[in-house]
Structures are given as structure tokens and as C-alpha cells.
């Protein structure tokens, strides 16, 4: 994400009119002022998290139960959101699917951060041939469009949940590796790290107490982005019929199953697609606000 530059001419309205009053003011609070779009994102994300945790308890029907003999029974007639192509309750399957879609992507992303993060810091700290080997390996994986890598692996190994998780973890670990390596290198040459070295702190203390805390904000933003990519990626594979397999409820699978309904004007495929979209948009809105906040001038916050 690129830092947003300011307008053509810098605005001066944030300049304090009277410097003498500054000492009377209470010390500046580092409050997190977040925009409306960010709050919308947070509330959508909380709703989906709740559904992922408790969805199966709330669902009116089991995920495989047929509640209608018609394909694509319209909304209101059967269930809350209608029936799918073999008459199962879309609402219930949506609640069951949340756990699958969000959970799979979460596991893959967390693993990608562990893998990419550990090797990234290792490359930054180790330097020399360690860095060279790890970086060239990383470049080799990044030379592929990720969808191609996935298609080749699935063609060779077939698809299953562990294959999906390991593959997405490997694909997502490459940008994480690049980021943590760059961050680690940037920070390890800063004065405060130099000072810690001069004090005679050992390497693990320096990594834990000086380097790592300074990488948390960019890593957190990256985590949000990687998580949305994982969700989109796994859903795309499921949509192609190469990811999660039916009859398991998963949002990508639900889109694929009900795609034929579009030609009858049934929204059965749009509902799970919209669920994925709302989730990923929500996370992106939060990350965007977060990055924007991080990019604000420090001087602006001091006033």
C-alpha cells in the first residue's frame, strides 16, 4: 500500500494559533480516531466472526437437509434466503459455511506468517549466504502467478483440506517473507538497535525487545491483507471445483453449486458471493483506515 500524499498545497489549518497556551493543555492523548468506513468494517467483521463461532448452533436446519422439493425456491417461501439447487436451506448453509471459509483461510494465513516471519527475520539477521539462499528461493516461488502454482499442485496431488492449507500457506508466506526481511533489515541498522548492541544486550533480547515491537504495525496491516487474499484465493479454488469439495458447506462451493440458478434469475449464487465480498471489503476498510492512521505525520499527533 502506498502512502497517500497530501494535497497540492499543504494545508496550514492544523497549525496552532498560539504557542503559549500549549503548556496549559493536558498532555496529548494518542487516541485512535477512526473514520466511519472503518467502523462499518469493524461491525461487519464482528458479525461474521460471531457467525463463524456460533453459526452451526443458530442454523435452523442441518447443512445437508433438504427442506424443499423445488430447485431454487425463492426467498420467503422456504427458509429466510430460499433454497439452493437441490432444495437445501441457503441460510443454514451460509451459517455453516462461514466457519469453513473463514477458518481455512485463517489457519493458512497464520501458518504463512509463522513461516514467512521466521525465515524473514532469519534472513535479515543472518545476512550473507543464508539471506541469498532464502531470497532466491522466495523469488522462484514468486515468479509464478499464484493461481498457476495452485493449479499445478492440485493437478499433481489432487485436492484436500491439508493440501489447500499447505499450498496457500506457501504462496502467502512469500510476500510475508519479503516484508519481514525488509523490515528487519531497516530496523536493525537504526540507532536504538545500535545502542542496545553497545549496551551489550544479546541478539535474542534485541530481536524481542527492539526489532519485533517496531514491526507490529506494518505486520498487522499485512496480516489483514493476506487474510483477505487467502479467503479470496481459497474461495476462487472452491468456485473452480478444485478447493473445498461438496457437500461440505463453504461459500465458494455454494457459489459454484448454485451458479446455474443465475439463468433462472435466482440469487442463490449471489448470496454466498456477497458474504465473501462483505467480509473481504470489511477487512480492507479496516486495514485502509489503519494504514492511513499510521501514515499521519507524527507532528500532527503531537499538536
Amino acid at each position: 500500500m502506498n502512502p497517500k500524499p497530501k494535497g497540492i498545497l499543504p494545508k496550514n489549518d492544523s497549525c496552532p494559533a498560539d504557542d503559549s497556551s500549549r503548556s496549559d493543555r493536558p498532555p496529548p492523548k494518542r487516541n485512535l480516531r477512526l473514520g466511519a468506513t472503518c467502523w462499518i468494517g469493524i461491525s461487519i467483521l464482528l458479525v461474521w466472526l460471531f457467525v463463524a463461532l456460533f453459526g452451526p448452533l443458530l442454523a435452523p436446519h442441518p447443512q445437508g437437509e433438504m427442506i424443499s422439493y423445488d430447485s431454487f425456491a425463492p426467498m420467503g417461501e422456504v427458509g429466510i434466503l430460499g433454497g439452493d439447487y437441490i432444495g437445501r436451506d441457503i441460510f443454514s448453509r451460509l451459517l455453516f459455511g462461514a466457519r469453513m471459509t473463514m477458518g481455512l483461510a485463517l489457519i493458512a494465513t497464520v501458518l504463512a506468517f509463522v513461516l514467512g516471519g521466521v525465515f524473514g527475520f532469519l534472513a535479515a539477521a543472518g545476512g550473507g549466504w543464508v539471506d541469498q539462499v532464502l531470497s532466491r528461493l522466495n523469488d522462484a516461488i514468486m515468479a509464478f502467478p499464484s493461481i498457476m502454482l495452485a493449479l499445478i499442485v492440485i493437478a499433481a496431488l489432487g485436492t484436500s483440506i491439508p493440501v489447500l492449507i499447505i499450498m496457500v500457506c506457501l504462496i502467502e508466506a512469500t510476500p510475508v517473507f519479503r516484508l519481514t526481511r525488509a523490515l528487519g533489515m531497516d530496523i536493525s541498522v537504526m540507532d536504538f538497535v545500535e545502542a542496545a548492541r553497545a549496551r551489550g544486550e544479546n541478539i535474542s533480547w534485541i530481536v524481542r525487545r527492539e526489532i519485533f515491537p517496531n514491526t507490529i504495525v506494518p505486520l498487522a496491516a499485512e496480516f489483514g491483507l493476506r487474510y483477505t487474499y487467502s479467503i479470496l484465493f481459497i474461495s476462487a479454488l472452491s468456485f473452480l471445483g478444485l478447493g473445498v469439495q461438496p457437500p461440505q458447506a463453504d461459500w465458494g462451493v455454494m457459489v459454484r453449486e448454485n451458479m446455474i440458478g443465475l439463468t433462472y434469475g435466482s440469487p442463490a449464487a449471489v448470496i454466498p458471493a456477497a458474504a465473501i465480498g462483505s467480509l473481504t471489503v470489511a477487512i480492507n476498510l479496516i486495514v485502509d483506515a489503519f494504514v492511513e492512521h499510521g501514515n499521519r505525520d507524527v507532528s500532527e499527533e503531537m499538536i
Partner: protein
Amino acid sequence: MGRILIKRIMLGLITMWIVSIMVFTATEILPGDVASAIMGKSATPEALQSIRTELGLDQPALVRYGGWLMDIFSGDLGNSLATGRKITELIGERLGNTIVLAVATALFAVPLSIFLGLFAAMFPGSFFDRGVSTSTLCLVSVPEFFIASVLVLIFSISLNWLPAISQISLNAPFLKLVQALALPVMTLTAAIMAHMARMTRTSVLNVVSSPYIEMAILKGVPRRTIIVRHAFPNALSPIFNVVALNLAYLISGVVIVETMFAYPGIARLMVDAVTNRDIPLVQACAMLFCSTYVGLNMLADLLSTIFNPRLRFPK
């Protein structure tokens, strides 16, 4: 200058070579081999052995890799396992369709997003600017199949203007072709527009904060002229870069869109091949897509070197 270009092209070729090794290795990790894939589970060991000898599978991996690479260079990609037809034929039938889709998308999406980005940069912080920023962010965050299915519901079902299935043939009348392409192109445009529009805006605004633009402002040059005449040309290098990268990103979009609209292109051929575990066809398609990807990335670097004098003379 020339040396830098040659160096970058060499790097691209090396990348392609690594890609080819990785694509080939994929067949090596296959449990069982192509022979058992052809014969099925009930094959006798003798039959398997004869097929292996016939296909040269009893040779060491390195020899087979060499042979495979030679075959690719001589244009013989072998036969598809599922249909038995020549792979070059299968790809040849569909290559044109995918190229038409990609070119149409590029012609539509690139000018549109550069225009939006420029306009947003002209009025930073305005309602329009925020609108473009938020809507493109939303469009890039949602899955392609969501955009596609909403478009189908609107344009095919409610309005009945465009077909939901894009069965195109290149000799069809022009209007038919445009109708069939409209929905896939719109979907792909929505998917790749965000990055390009945002990058255009950011790079123009970056240039705008430099002293010579301040000079122009003080001289009283109108804002529109400043952006179009003074800032935009200098912002071209990063814009070219992001355009080429996004055209490379188009590859994953194409896979989804061709499946969604039953579009007879290479991507759908590859997805079907993966579903059937038709390894030779998967390899051929993967090499085709990966070389396009590597090529576009290389083009992006070359273009930004040509357009940015500072990159031509690295310190």
C-alpha cells in the same frame, strides 16, 4: 542502457528456466506416474511397464526433463491424456479467444483507470476523489465471481441485453462478438482497475509535491494544465509499471471469468485439465501462462527503465 536491457532479459530467461523446472517437478511428485494415470488402477504390472518404456518414463528424471524441454522448443507438446488429441491443436483452437478477451480488457480498463486516477489527482480530497478511492477498494476486495454474478443478474436477467454465457467465435458478426465479450470484460476491468487508478493518483500527486510544480502554481498555471502537461508525463514510469503488473494479474482473473461465463479460452481448458488430472495439458497451459506472466513483468521493468532516466544509470 543496452547492457541493462540485456541483463534484464537474461534475468527473465533464467526465471523462465526455473519456472520450467518447477512445472516439470510437479509431475515427479505425482503419486504414481503418467503410466498408471493412463491405464487406470486395474492395469497389470507388465502393461504398465510397456507403457513406461513407450513413453520413456523408465529414463532418469534429468533425461526426461531435457527431452521435455527440447519438445517444447520444437513446438511438440505431446498429446492430451484425456482426449488423446494433440495439445498444440487444443491450445491453438482457444488461444485466439483468450487473447481477444485480454486485449479487449486492456483497451477498456487501462484508459479508464488512468483517467479516473488523473481526475482524482486533480481534486485530491474531494468527493470524487474519495468516491473513486472507496469504490475501487471495494471492487478489488470482492471476488470476481461476485461481480460477474451481479452483472449477469442485471444485464442478462433483468434487462435481457447481454448473454449470460459467452459462446464466442471469432468469425461471428462484430456486434455479436461485442455482446459476448461485454460481461467478461466488465468483470475483469472491475478486478484490475483499482490498483491502476490508485497508482496513477499516487504517482501524479508525488510529482505534484516537487518544486517545479510549485513554481508552476506560483506562476498561475491552471490546475488542469499543471496535472496534464507538467505532472502526468513524469508520473508515467510508475504507471507503466503498475499497468503491466496488473495485466499479469489478469491471468488469475481470466481463470475465474472464463469458468463463470463458460468462455472457450485457454484458462478453462487448463481448469478442465486440472480436474481430469491431464498432466501434459496442465504443463503446457502452465508454461504458456507463466511465460506470459514473466514476459509482462519483464516488460514492466524495461518500460520503467526506458521512461525513467535515473534507473538507466544505477549508482
